[in-house]
């Protein structure tokens, strides 16, 4: 009875005190928070230790998503530091290979170190397995349809065995160590483990930092979502296929196939596209220009070749942007001008730069001989020269006579201008013209008739070639008609008329010698030809009668 009443009292007391005590505790907690913390703190360590000891896997799974990320951030930072170290090392190294890598890095917009790490690497996730840690049973999987693994169960079990073997073998002092990766001929299996499960990711080629991060994130996500199902896995796979765990793995498969290339795409510098484009257009322009130039060149060459007078000369053409440059040698400027004229009219020709050189090249002996013959003909056509020649290639010998040194000199100068003559042998004799001219008079007259004046002008032209010191003889003849005295008077006057005309018209300063004969000239019959008997004969002291008067 007493017990019962005590119980009732206790209960009543409890009910009554509870709100008060709670209030006291609350207020006490507020005021002695620090004190309380100090009391509880020492208990926390052993409590966690105990929990870890008994429920290690639970603790690991609870912490995995947090710690996984923490570690991944730490690792990422460490890796970045490592990359910058490598970069520094690379910058100090200068070799052709390093230089090439530098250029590539600049063009792709990635760091050299990454390039160095990614060299020969192409990451490609082939398969992802979520494996139950103890049994090795595949809980969920995602595979690249092109590289499907036939027996994933066997692989998973075997890998689990290997994992267990290695972990047990390397574990020391109860400290747990995890197998992280299995490498085999360029491929690898990345193992990321949580407490009850692990992900085995089969990667073809190299794995990138981003790949590891994504794997870690995926496992973290799976553990936080399905951790309980995994822990309680007994063998029923139905649960996992219903939960569609594989859907969580598939993005990882896609991630590394696409994201990696996307990564590279993003990192590709825009110049990478512009430079080849520019190069391509430049190359196209060059090709077009070269084609146009070639076409025009062909046109010009054909035209030059088909023009008969130019066919035999080797003319070179260069075409640049419609400007035609001609070069070569032609014998006459006519040819040069012809070329310019022809090409200027060709379509698409902007201008002609004619660098053709005119080289008179009569090196053919026959041509040279003909040229000399032609020249001699020309020279002989004028009064005072009577020339012949012999031409033995390169050596010319000129013979004949010339009325004066002046004429001779002129003739020789003409020969000197002929190409193909090296030496000229001068055998020209200077001989002034022989003058013997009768000036006739009408009966009883002493003045000069028109015919007489005309004859005297001819004499004067010859006298130009005569030596000034030579003496001009004037001899008068009569027709024997009338008395001798009259005839002598007429003769004297007739000589004076001739002398006067010559001196006045010819302005000559030669010395004159007069002689008067009271006979007609030799061989003239004064009865038959009285008009030929009345005359004054002009003769030249020295000279050759080669002039036709």
């Amino acid at each position: 009875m007493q017990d019962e009443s005590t119980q009732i009292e206790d209960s009543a007391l409890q009910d009554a005190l509870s709100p008060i005590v709670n209030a006291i505790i609350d207020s006490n907690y507020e005021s002695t928070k620090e004190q309380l913390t100090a009391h509880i703190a020492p208990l926390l360590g052993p409590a966690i230790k105990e929990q870890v000891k008994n429920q290690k896997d639970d603790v690991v799974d609870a912490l995995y998503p947090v710690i996984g990320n923490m570690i991944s951030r730490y690792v990422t930072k460490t890796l970045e530091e490592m990359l910058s170290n490598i970069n520094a090392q690379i910058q100090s190294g200068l070799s052709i290979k390093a230089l090439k890598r530098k250029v590539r890095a600049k063009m792709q917009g990635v760091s050299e170190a990454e390039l160095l790490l990614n060299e020969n690497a192409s990451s490609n996730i082939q398969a992802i397995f979520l494996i139950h840690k103890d049994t090795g049973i595949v809980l969920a999987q995602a595979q690249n349809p092109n590289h499907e693994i036939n027996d994933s169960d066997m692989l998973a079990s075997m890998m689990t065995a290997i994992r267990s073997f290695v972990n047990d073998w390397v574990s020391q002092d109860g400290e747990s160590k995890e197998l992280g990766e299995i490498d085999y001929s360029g491929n690898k299996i990345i193992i990321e483990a949580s407490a009850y499960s692990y992900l085995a990711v089969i990667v073809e080629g190299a794995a990138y930092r981003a790949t590891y991060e994504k794997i870690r994130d995926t496992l973290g996500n799976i553990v936080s979502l399905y951790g309980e199902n995994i822990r309680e896995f007994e063998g029923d796979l139905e649960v996992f296929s219903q939960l569609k765990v594989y859907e969580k793995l598939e993005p990882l498969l896609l991630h590394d196939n696409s994201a990696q290339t996307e990564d590279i795409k993003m990192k590709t510098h825009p110049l990478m596209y512009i430079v080849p484009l520019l190069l391509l257009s430049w190359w196209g322009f060059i090709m077009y220009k070269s084609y146009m130039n070639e076409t025009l060149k062909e046109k010009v060459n054909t035209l030059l070749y088909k023009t008969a007078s130019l066919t035999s000369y080797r003319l070179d053409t260069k075409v640049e942007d419609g400007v035609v440059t001609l070069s070569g040698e032609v014998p006459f400027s006519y040819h040069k001008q012809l070329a310019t004229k022809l090409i200027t009219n060709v379509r698409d020709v902007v201008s002609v730069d004619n660098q053709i050189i005119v080289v008179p090249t009569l090196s053919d002996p026959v041509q040279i001989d003909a040229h000399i013959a032609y020249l001699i003909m020309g020279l002989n056509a004028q009064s005072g020269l009577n020339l012949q020649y012999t031409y033995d290639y390169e050596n010319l010998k000129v013979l004949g006579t010339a009325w004066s040194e002046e004429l001779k000199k002129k003739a020789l100068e003409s020969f000197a201008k002929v190409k193909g003559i090296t030496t000229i042998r001068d055998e020209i004799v200077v001989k002034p013209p022989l003058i013997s001219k009768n000036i006739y008079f009408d009966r009883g007259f002493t003045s000069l008739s028109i015919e007489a004046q005309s004859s005297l002008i001819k004499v004067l032209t010859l006298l130009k070639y005569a030596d000034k010191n030579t003496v001009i003889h004037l001899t008068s003849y009569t027709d024997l008609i009338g008395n001798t005295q009259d005839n002598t008077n007429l003769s004297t006057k007739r000589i004076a008329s001739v002398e006067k005309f010559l001196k006045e018209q010819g302005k000559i300063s030669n010395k004159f010698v007069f002689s008067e004969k009271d006979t007609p000239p030799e061989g003239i019959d004064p009865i038959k030809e009285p008009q030929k008997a009345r005359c004054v004969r002009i003769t030249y002291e020295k000279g050759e009668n080669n002039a036709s008067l």
Partner: protein
Amino acid sequence: MLAYKVVMVGDFGVGKTSLVKRFVDNSFSEEYLSTIGVSISKKAINDSTLMLWDIEGHTEFKPIFKQYLSGAKGFIVVADINRQNTIESIQRHIELCHSSVKNAPICIALNKSDIHHTLDENDMQKLKELSEFVVEVYKTSAKEGSAVADIFNELDEHISKSIKK
């Protein structure tokens, strides 16, 4: 669809590997066995996929890796019907299994039963009573194939029931 792990346990040379080979037609090469101490085979029966872990036989120089036992849904403890010492080891093997997986069902295979032996029903009963989790004791012959499928089927039936329960 069930998938679980079954581990073969027994002394060296009792015929574990032969039993597995007789049972499955798909197995890893024995080279693995000598390398990491386990050979794994897969066999689908009924609605289950059995992953058979054939652990390297225990010798005094080579302790088995206990990790290989963990997670198993059932065990097959194998002994040579004609080698008494291997039969005596059964008790120790059962303890080993249960130290790893508590209350896991166990089938005992007394192998090489094609060879003349003196083991009788009484002895078999005694073996079955070694643990309340011993499902059944079979006389098997990997050579002739007798009772090989039975032992795996029996174990599967038992495990399947417990999983689906």
